[in-house]
């Protein structure tokens, strides 16, 4: 009997091929949408971690109060000692001191007179001890012209800054700002290269120099605005655990210059943003799965209803309602599984392509203030392999179940009548 039913299923395209096509298409969309959302959240986390937050970040409590202004005069002291402690106690993590600062970039002419001036957002990172920051900030790939700083006194400008101020490679520029203690500060740099991150908020006005130069410029010996901590793999719970442990030791509510370690999610807008993203993506995913489930449930239902005529014949010939119902459900399960496997495979191929190549949205990001990559990518996770089964198998089987209930509810003669129509 099973062989007989399987034969029918294989031969009848409207019972096998078309439902498989519809379900597989729905599953493709589900997998793609899910991996896309994953990529979006992952991008927000990783981009912000790279440039803004780290996986955890240590600042002073006072700095934290005004963190949006990046007040380096409220920065961390005795950074070497802190780094020693962190490296000893959290050896699996990478700790990086950074200084964020705002300054005026002065471009002189051949006589040393000001030719151009512009505001820049400076970033002082460790460019020479190891390659961690170079790799993290993806500087090799971001390099648009010239080379990365090879020695102290060299600086990278964002391409936009360089072209706005008409700076050429090898030019001398002067950074004008104020020291950590409030006096005027000037420092000369040689432009070694220009960079383009593809992140509009960075590309608009960033300059990058080695932290030792920035310390000299701003008179910040053995200090830093922030110390970033990076886990080998981001795990939110771990960032909370480490922060709790560190803060219990070093953070005092009544001492505004004591340290505070902030996990990524608790920093500035991140908490709100990620909560909002989580909530919205949760709603999106729920609705998407719900809609896909309704579509595929309906497809299962229609497929079942379309076959009431056939059901009528089978009942007349002597097949029991229970047997027909079970056969319909088994058929729906088989079709659902086959279609979901096909749909998931295709969806994953597209997702991997999207993860690898991404989609360039730089034109949409021109005026964006948030740190967000201009290339949006999908991110394939383990869940992507299974998420399609919700609409693909469960919904279509539920559809078939509902359609099948009609077999029980309808009088046999009614099914028979539908068969004759």
């Amino acid at each position, binding site marked *: 009997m099973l062989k*007989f039913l399987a034969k029918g299923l294989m031969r009848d395209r409207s019972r096998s091929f078309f439902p498989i096509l519809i379900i597989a298409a729905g599953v493709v969309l589900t997998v793609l949408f899910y991996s896309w959302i994953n990529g979006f959240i992952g991008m927000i986390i990783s981009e912000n971690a790279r440039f803004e937050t780290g996986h955890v970040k240590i600042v002073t409590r006072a700095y934290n109060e005004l963190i949006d202004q990046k007040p380096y005069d409220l920065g961390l002291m005795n950074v070497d000692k802190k780094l020693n402690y962190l490296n000893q106690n959290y050896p699996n993590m990478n700790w990086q001191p950074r200084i964020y600062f705002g300054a005026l970039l002065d471009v002189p002419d051949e006589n040393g007179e000001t030719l151009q001036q512009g505001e820049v957002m400076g970033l002082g990172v460790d460019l020479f001890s190891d390659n961690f920051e170079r790799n993290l900030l993806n500087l090799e790939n971001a390099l648009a012209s010239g080379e990365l700083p090879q020695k102290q006194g060299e600086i990278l400008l964002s391409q936009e800054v360089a072209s706005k101020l008409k700076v050429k490679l090898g030019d001398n520029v002067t950074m004008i700002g104020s020291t950590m203690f409030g006096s005027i500060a000037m420092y000369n740099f040689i432009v070694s290269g220009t960079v383009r991150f593809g992140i509009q908020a960075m590309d608009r006005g960033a300059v990058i120099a080695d932290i030792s130069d920035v310390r000299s410029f701003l008179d910040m010996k053995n200090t830093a605005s922030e110390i970033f901590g990076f886990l080998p793999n981001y795990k939110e719970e771990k960032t909370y655990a480490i922060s709790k442990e560190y803060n219990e030791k070093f953070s005092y509510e009544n001492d505004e210059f004591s340290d505070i370690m902030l996990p990524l999610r608790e920093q500035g807008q991140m908490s709100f943003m990620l909560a909002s993203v989580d909530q919205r993506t949760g709603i999106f995913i729920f609705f998407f799965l719900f809609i896909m489930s309704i579509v595929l449930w309906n497809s299962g239902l229609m497929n079942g209803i379309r076959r009431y005529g056939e059901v*009528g014949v089978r009942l007349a010939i002597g097949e029991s309602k229970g047997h027909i119902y079970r056969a319909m459900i088994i058929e729906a399960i088989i079709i659902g599984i086959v279609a979901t496997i096909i749909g998931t495979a295709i969806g994953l191929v597209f997702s991997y392509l999207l993860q690898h190549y991404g989609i360039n949205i730089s034109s949409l990001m021109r005026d964006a203030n948030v740190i967000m990559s201009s290339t949006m990518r999908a991110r394939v996770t383990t869940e992507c392999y299974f998420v399609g089964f919700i609409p693909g198998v469960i919904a279509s089987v539920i559809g078939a179940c509902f359609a099948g209930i009609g077999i029980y509810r309808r009088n046999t003669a009614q099914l028979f009548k539908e068969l004759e129509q």
Partner: protein
Amino acid sequence: MNKLIEMKNVMKKYPMGKTDFVALENIDLKFSEGEFTGIVGPSGSGKTTILNIIGSLDSQSSGDVLVMGKQIAKLSNTKSARLRSQKIGFIFQTYNLLPVYTVFENVEFPLLLLNMSKEKRKILVNEALKWVGLTDKIKSKPAQLSGGECQRVAIARAIVKEPKLVLADEPTANLDAENSHNILKMMKKINEETGTTFIFATHDAKVIKYITRKITLLDGSIAQDEIVSGG
């Protein structure tokens, strides 16, 4: 002859809005084994309803119906399915063959429900197809057959399990005169040689020529029940 079906004071109502539509009223009928009976009457007179009740596809609203000793109204879904699969064959106006299966497979289907061995199924299917003269078409699909041939396959499917009773609802309505006569001759032959009881619902004059008993229905009631010559 043994009594096969007994209908006593049968009534069938269908709800129609706030009132009921009475499809059958005061039906008292007895059918014996080997009959070749036609239930005739205009559309809506209740012919198909009688066949549906006898075939346990529907149940009466009141009265008693005994088919082969079984009270139809009291049968569970499973038991009525078993009665149909073992004892009753159906022939429909529109043939209702399963389009994706071959002639052989269509005829084989009722036997699969009886859990028969493959060898026995093969013998019975070939025998049934021999009866209807379609042994050369066993691999064809319904779409490749003419209307007459489709109805012959439907007859083969109805008789393959050697049922005691075949219920045929307007079996010639979709056929031309020549095919109708061939089909009816074939059914008459099966009736005479195997003793299978045939009950037709029809308003086709050609069928009336072949039947031996004619029951005329009018507005759900029996207007006439007579023995006729039976071609």
